[in-house]
């Protein structure tokens, strides 16, 4: 009896020790993998990454090479398993290169938006004097509907993918700044920040080395969710003719050219549409999963 008790005790005492040794990162990933939808999202994102990274290997044709003899072939046509568009360009190849564009534009615009948003959020959360000014600026940006703001910026800068990146990143800044500011406000009141000041750390050091890491969870979730919005907006802007210009194999632009052939060859709009939907859905689901996985209140359930 006594020995079994001590063994049980040992189990209790050793088990959590091993678990605690795992890095927070591993723990978060594990929790994320328990969420089935998030796993689906991760797979879709992974596939998109692979396609984007090795686009020339996956694409069997040049995405902008016209072949007017084989125009508007349907799905399953010989040599073009997703068919061809009105100029005879291979839809699969265009889709694969489009994955590259949407991913690049998404990552670039989200990173730029994060840099701006985190900087503004940290400053306005930490320095009370800057808070009013920065937050009013953010309110100003919030006053415009997002897509209109992006269109306004593109109208000023001209239509190109680079300008789409700039427009979407500017549009991401206010939301990100507010999220970061909120976290900073709660973290800076913690005693460990006062303790850091009591050992003589400078404001910059406290802000970057001690406050920022504590705000990371909401920022990661925001970035993932924002990827979805960024990809969707890129497609939307390209569809409207404000982003990628015609020969570029961009998903939104593909739908735009395909809509004239809606009834003769519906695959020209449906296929890129499905691609956009899947990717946006995937990023949203992973974002949701991450939010749950990073939520400290979920600890009790596991």
């Amino acid at each position: 009896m006594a020995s079994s008790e001590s063994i049980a005790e040992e189990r209790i005492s050793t088990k959590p020790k091993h678990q605690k040794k795992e890095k927070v990162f591993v723990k978060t990933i594990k929790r994320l993998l328990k969420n089935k939808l998030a796993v689906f999202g991760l797979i879709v994102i992974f596939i998109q990454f692979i396609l984007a990274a090795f686009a020339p290997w996956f694409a069997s044709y040049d995405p902008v090479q016209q072949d007017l003899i084989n125009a508007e072939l349907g799905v399953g046509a010989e040599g073009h398993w997703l068919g061809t568009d009105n100029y005879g360009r291979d839809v699969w190849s265009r889709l694969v290169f489009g994955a590259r564009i949407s991913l690049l534009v998404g990552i670039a615009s989200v990173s730029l938006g994060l840099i701006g948003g985190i900087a503004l959020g940290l400053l306005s959360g930490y320095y009370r004097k800057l808070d009013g000014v920065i937050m009013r600026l953010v309110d100003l940006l919030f006053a415009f509907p997002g897509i209109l703001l992006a269109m306004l910026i593109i109208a000023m800068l001209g239509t190109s993918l680079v300008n789409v990146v700039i427009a979407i990143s500017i549009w991401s800044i206010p939301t990100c700044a507010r999220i970061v500011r909120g976290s900073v406000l709660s973290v800076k009141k913690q005693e460990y920040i006062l303790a850091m000041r009591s050992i003589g750390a400078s404001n910059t050091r406290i802000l970057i080395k001690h406050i920022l890491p504590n705000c990371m969870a909401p920022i990661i979730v925001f970035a993932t969710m924002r990827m979805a919005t960024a990809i969707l907006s890129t497609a939307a802007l390209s569809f409207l003719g404000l982003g990628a210009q015609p020969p570029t194999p961009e998903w939104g632009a593909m739908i735009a050219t395909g809509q004239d052939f809606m009834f003769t060859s519906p695959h020209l709009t449906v296929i890129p549409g499905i691609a956009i939907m899947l990717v946006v859905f995937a990023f949203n689901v992973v974002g949701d999963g991450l939010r749950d996985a990073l939520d400290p209140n979920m600890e009790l359930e596991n």
Partner: protein
Amino acid sequence: MEQLLQVNDLITSFRTTGGKLPAVRGVSFSVNEGETLCIVGESGCGKSITTLSVIGLLPNNGEISEGSIKFQGEELTTKKEKELRKLRGNDISMIFQEPMTALNPVFTIGYQLMEPLKTHRRMSNKEMRSKSIDLLKQVGIPDPEKKLKQFPHELSGGMRQRVLIAIALACNPSLLIADEPTTALDVTIQAQILDLIDDLKTDLGMGVVMVTHDMGVVAEVADRVMVMYAGNVVETGTVDEIFSSPKHPYTKGLLASVPNVDDTDHKLEAIPGSLPNLNETIHGCRFHPRCPFAMEKCVEKDPPQFKVSQQQYSKCWLQEEGISSEPKDRAYS
């Protein structure tokens, strides 16, 4: 013994919507090397604000409006933030009340221990590592190599407080400010932490300012005691004087409200009333509305500090010569 810290007529006030309110109203005290000064008083009497003024970490809306703080002969109130930063953690260190929240949850113990060394000392990573292991050993943490890699949530409250003490001691400060270091700890751990602070004080020859509202802690560690009430120092003296012959009615009240374990029939005597608000204007002595010994004079005029003995001072009209200290109605037995 050399004088380490000399505070004179310190007035610290806060900007509020109701105007500028003084939380500390003309406090003077001094700390010598190797000496422990305990600041006692009810919550909100200005103890913590006094210590935060010394280290220069007042909240945004607080400021030192008058008085001087001299540390090792240097005036601190006129120093720039940058110069103060060099002192903090290096010459003056602070331990906080809540070991649970005073460590950053996202960094390892080792990383946080090296922070003061990174800020104030130029050391290689290897030196910092060995120094932090020494520090952890010094504060009595077993298995320091392993602890360096652990996160705060993996340690108990007492261990965390030890880590905080180690962080505070990293650069061998000459003055240690401890703001209720044991309030959040178990009673058994409390004694250990107090002993540790006491031992380190003798080993390193630091001056210690300890803020507390626990008279038991005072009896355990203090050399001298300063009793504060509503932003004023009402009595100072050596620990023996304060416990054996308290002069100020407030000190007597504080001592009477300490539970007595040996005497089961002992009735706790609470001080009637509550601490006045910062914006309350009280004419005369700020304690008189709650004082069982209050006289007419107390309402009319604020008493000065009366010298009782070499070290003991009491801010009460009762100490004025010629007035018998027989109370009107005996409040505290």
